[in-house]
């Protein structure tokens, strides 16, 4: 089974005095759900971009299935922090984009796109233009577009950031359902501590200056959900509260509150 690995990766942007990320190692197998958390500007997006093949590490190696990553590929679908939707397409056409690339018939791909739009609770927004969508709707269209590509790895940069609590919770379960069913590997950036706990099989905590890993937590709440336990029950578990406290500490370590 292919693994996505970053091996002692450093990122150094042109013209910047210091590296943005230094010697970070990560491993995402299919069936893993790895969540990156950390302070604003600590290099989460940068690492995700390395995995996506959009940023070349200054040092270290990024591989997928053992082969070095040389650019973006359909095996790793990305949802960007700023939805990079195509304004010349409708919401449905945006979602169907990956299918169109593969030559799926117009009919079939419209059907599949509508399925995915319903999945992200936008069943009736298929004909809308991008500029007719609200911020949260765009984010969900971006997510559906990545799902349509049926990748081996999903790389998500705060995919639920602009969503209200209820929609967000629903999207979380949708993500977990998809992940459990398709056995994809997920690498996701989030700012929600609970979200990280509910979703992740592994949480990687980054600290800034330059970005490095301070802690890795293995969690299992997501697997419990995938095995059938209701999500509210999982959140009520005292183990959840303990993990929450531990994670909060790890993130805020050495910081005045």
């Amino acid at each position, binding site marked *: 089974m292919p693994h996505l690995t970053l091996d002692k990766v450093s990122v150094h942007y042109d013209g910047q005095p210091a590296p943005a990320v230094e010697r970070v190692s990560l491993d995402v197998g299919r069936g893993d759900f790895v969540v990156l958390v950390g302070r604003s500007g600590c290099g989460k997006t940068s690492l995700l971009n390395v995995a*996506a*093949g*959009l940023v070349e590490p200054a040092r270290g190696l990024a591989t997928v299935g053992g082969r070095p990553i040389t*650019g*973006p*590929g*359909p095996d*790793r*679908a*990305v949802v*960007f922090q*700023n939805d*990079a939707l*195509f*304004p*010349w397409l409708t919401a449905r056409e945006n979602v169907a*984009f*990956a299918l*169109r*690339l*593969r030559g799926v018939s117009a009919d079939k791909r419209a059907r599949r796109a509508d399925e995915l739009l319903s999945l992200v609770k936008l069943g009736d927004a298929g004909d809308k*233009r*991008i*500029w*007719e969508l609200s911020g949260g709707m765009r984010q969900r269209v971006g997510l559906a*577009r*990545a799902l*349509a*590509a049926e990748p081996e790895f999903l*790389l998500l940069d705060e995919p639920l950031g602009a969503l209200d609590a209820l929609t967000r919770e629903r999207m979380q379960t949708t993500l977990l359902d998809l992940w459990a069913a398709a056995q994809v590997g997920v690498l996701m950036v989030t700012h929600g501590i609970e979200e990280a706990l509910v979703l992740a099989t592994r949480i990687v905590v980054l600290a800034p200056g330059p970005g490095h890993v301070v802690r890795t937590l293995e969690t299992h709440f997501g697997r419990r959900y995938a095995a059938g336990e209701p999500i509210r029950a999982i959140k009520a578990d005292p183990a959840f509260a303990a993990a929450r406290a531990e994670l909060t500490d790890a993130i805020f370590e050495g910081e005045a509150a």
Partner: protein
Amino acid sequence: MSVGTYSERPAAKAEETDGFAVPWSRPRPRPRRAISARLVSAITILVLLAAWTVSASLQLVSPVFLPSPAAVWAKFVIVARDGFVDATLLQHLLASLWRVFAALIAAILVGVPVGLAIGISRIGRGVFDPLLEFLRPIPPLAYLPLIIIWFGIGEPSKILVIAIAMLAPVALSTAAGVRGVSRERVDAARSLGATRAQVIRHVIVPSALPSILTGLRIALGAGWSTLVAAELVAATRGLGFMIQSAAQFLVTDVVVMGILVIAIIAFVLEFVIRRIERVLVPWSGRE
């Protein structure tokens, strides 16, 4: 398309609320009160016509050099009916229209791919940049003999002269459009499995489309303005040929009439391209 902005309402601070004509989606407007651009255009044209009539009737310059609108109109009727230099106005017009359109199509077929190549690939830029840069500043009057030596005195030569004038605007605008493509959208497409060709077709071309259409509009203007030079090449028909023949004999009313006919045709074409623009790139300015 109805565009509603606050500009159409009585405004407390006029200077800040004059509104922008840039179209974008806003809620339903109140009924328009501001004058429309088309009305202003009509007024402008009428004012120009009036100025022309007045200065012609005052005989500020000899009518040989500034014929009155009436004289030009009379000439228009005569040339439309009886012709000038052996062909009617319609025949001249059709000959020129066909040349300009053939050249436009050639310029699109060559210029858009060349512009894409320049914008996208380092090798494309290396090869086409010098060719284009070499070609575009050369005055057509200077290379006419070479064109004839290589391509003869038939239609191809005339079309080529016009097409060369059109090539640079099309290619440069395309290349500029490609340079402006959002990096994130390209990345998104690639991560969705797009090959290089698919990125070009599905992301770069649509993104560059507004710029390409601007290039076409500039190119059409350039093409018309090369018409006289092109029709110096053994033409027997064409608006440029007509104008040139008339100019040589100081038949200024025909010259002015020809200029007006070209301007009107160009006007109509421009209008059509703008329609196309609105249909093809409704997202322009809304991203």
